[in-house]
């Protein structure tokens, strides 16, 4: 089954003719993702790796019946691209772009909530359901079909963990990168709920980091779950008041510490790994 993206995904790539767009269009195609079109204003009629390019989302969705879109445009154009996507008939919107102004992200996420559109990101590596579809920029080779659902606020750190899981002989149902910004469309709780209802997912890995209280909220939900949850929290030695690379990774006014998150998750029954490399071992030990 997997969640969010699969064989039924019909994907539009917004910004397909850019450097990133061209590169990742190929990678997503190679992952057998059903990429049905791309959008770059003014370049309608062209094609990228055989994918038709349209001038607007409206046109693209009309022509291709797409249900999902991925945004790979520069930060200052991302809000417009997101609104255009949400005003077409898209149900799932993955925003890869980083450095989107936070007030723009607020507008995007508020509108998405109103229109019941599932937004992943911004500033995220996307979503991968191995063997089915990749809507994102994660490296394809590290994945393998399996039953571990992964949800994370990080990029490379997630790849490490995915890779370790794969090398350990396990595989993934779906892997979601939520994004490193303070305002994101999908939370840990949202993802846990989806994994909870997914038959293909047997175990869940949660990769959190300092900042905010999304992990604490996840812990509340984990209490009610039957599926085992394994977690890792980055930033245990981060000093307060500093943004650790991600706009959202900051301990501010004593809130959002790794300690608080780890404690909440442990209390909720999750296995919290000391270092990311321990995750696969913890899974096989328990399951």
């Amino acid at each position, binding site marked *: 089954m997997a969640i969010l993206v699969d064989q039924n995904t019909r994907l539009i790539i917004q910004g397909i003719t850019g450097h990133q767009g061209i590169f990742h269009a190929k*990678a997503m195609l190679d992952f057998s993702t059903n990429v049905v079109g791309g959008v770059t204003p003014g370049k309608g009629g062209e094609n990228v790796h055989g994918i038709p390019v349209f001038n607007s989302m409206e046109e693209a969705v009309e022509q291709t019946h797409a249900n999902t879109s991925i945004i790979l445009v520069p*930060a*200052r154009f991302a809000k417009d691209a997101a609104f255009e996507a949400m005003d077409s008939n898209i149900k799932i919107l993955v925003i890869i772009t980083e450095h*989107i*102004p*936070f*007030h*723009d992200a*607020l*507008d995007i996420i*508020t*509108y998405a*909530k109103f229109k019941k559109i599932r937004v992943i990101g911004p500033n995220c590596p996307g979503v991968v359901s191995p063997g089915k579809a990749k809507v994102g*920029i*994660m*490296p394809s*080779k590290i994945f393998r079909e399996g039953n571990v659902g992964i949800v*994370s*606020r*990080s*990029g*490379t*750190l*997630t*790849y*490490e963990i995915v*890779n370790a899981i794969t090398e350990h002989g396990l595989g993934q149902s779906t892997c979601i990168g939520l994004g*490193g910004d*303070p*305002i*994101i469309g999908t*939370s840990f709780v949202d993802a846990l709920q989806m994994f909870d209802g997914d038959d293909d997912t047997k175990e869940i890995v949660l*990769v959190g*980091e*300092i900042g*905010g*209280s*999304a992990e604490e*909220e996840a812990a509340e939900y984990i209490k009610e779950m039957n599926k085992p949850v394994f977690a*890792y929290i*980055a*930033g*245990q*030695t*981060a*000093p307060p008041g*500093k*943004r*650790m*690379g*991600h*706009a959202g*990774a900051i301990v501010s*006014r*004593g809130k959002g510490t*790794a300690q608080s998150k780890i404690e909440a998750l442990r209390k909720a029954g999750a296995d919290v790994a*000391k*270092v*990311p*490399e321990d995750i696969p071992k913890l899974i096989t030990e328990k399951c």
Partner: protein
Amino acid sequence: MKLYEYKAKEVFAKYNIPVPKSVVVLEADEFKGEELDFPVVIKSQVLVGGRGKAGGIKFADDLNEARERIDVMLNSTIKGCKVKKVLVEEKLDIEKEIYIGITLDRSASAPLLLASAEGGVEIETVPEEKLFKKHITPFLGIQPFILRNLSAKLRLSKEEGKKISKIVSALYALFDREDAELVEINPLVITSQGEVIAADAKLIIDNDALFRHPEYEGLDEDLTPLEKRAKQKGIAFIQLDGDIGVIANGAGLTMATLDNLSFHGGKGGVFLDLGGTDDPEKVKEAILLMKDAEPSVILLNIFGGITKCDTVAIGVKDAIEIGKIDIPVVARIKGLNEEKAKKILRNAGIVAVDTIEQAVKEAITLGGR
């Protein structure tokens, strides 16, 4: 980008939020005493909280006293921050102190308006039941009913409510239009004459939105020279207390590497996130930046997914050669083309190991401080 109080008050004034009459002084004798009525308040311009308790706020009744205190303050350090400017303001005749702030509630993905009739103290210490809290829907902004409810909660008189409502509306407009992450007036003073004046001003502008606010560019910030250089180059770089410089690709991985280091008794001195790049130029910039931070050892942790490990390795090798770097480097590099990469690094005299644990242990040994 956190603004200094005097700068934040300039922005407040643009939005017609009343602020005290003031002058900014860089040297004591710049202050002539004619600009303001005495008594005055002398406030150190530093970007740390709690400066009052740390001696960063003083009063003066006449010019001599003022100059003396300005002079002392300009030669002082408040909570580790060197005082470069002071703000001299007319002292307010305080009747009541209010707290007003707009911040982001990450869980709700919405701005949160906070107000309390107990101003002048840290808002975290105010009991929940005395707080006015309201999430603001971005598209709707501050509707009249919100102001009405705020006034009721804070038990403001009709006249106070009117003035403070205006200020709250202006503050939200500022928050919205200036791309602020946080605005705070603490305290918002009601004087004995019934005037309402922002005695302090906190304002943080979203760095990612600076492209549409060129007026904030080049503003004085609380960054180390290296951090400033990193910012210009677009590299996430943070100086920490320890001695081991950590470079990794991705913020999460960099944090995880620092954490791992600490579990083994090491201490990170630099957080440097290379991001999702294998651009040799950027890798070089990063290594040179790291060199100038003078760590005892550099710990490189790369996971190559999209990023090719060998390209990163070449960038590192080149930077070490060009920068004549003699700081020991330990690399753990994994992923796309990792074998090639390890060979390149080893040929450049770098310790290239397979696991992060090995790398961390090696770095601690080599650093040896």
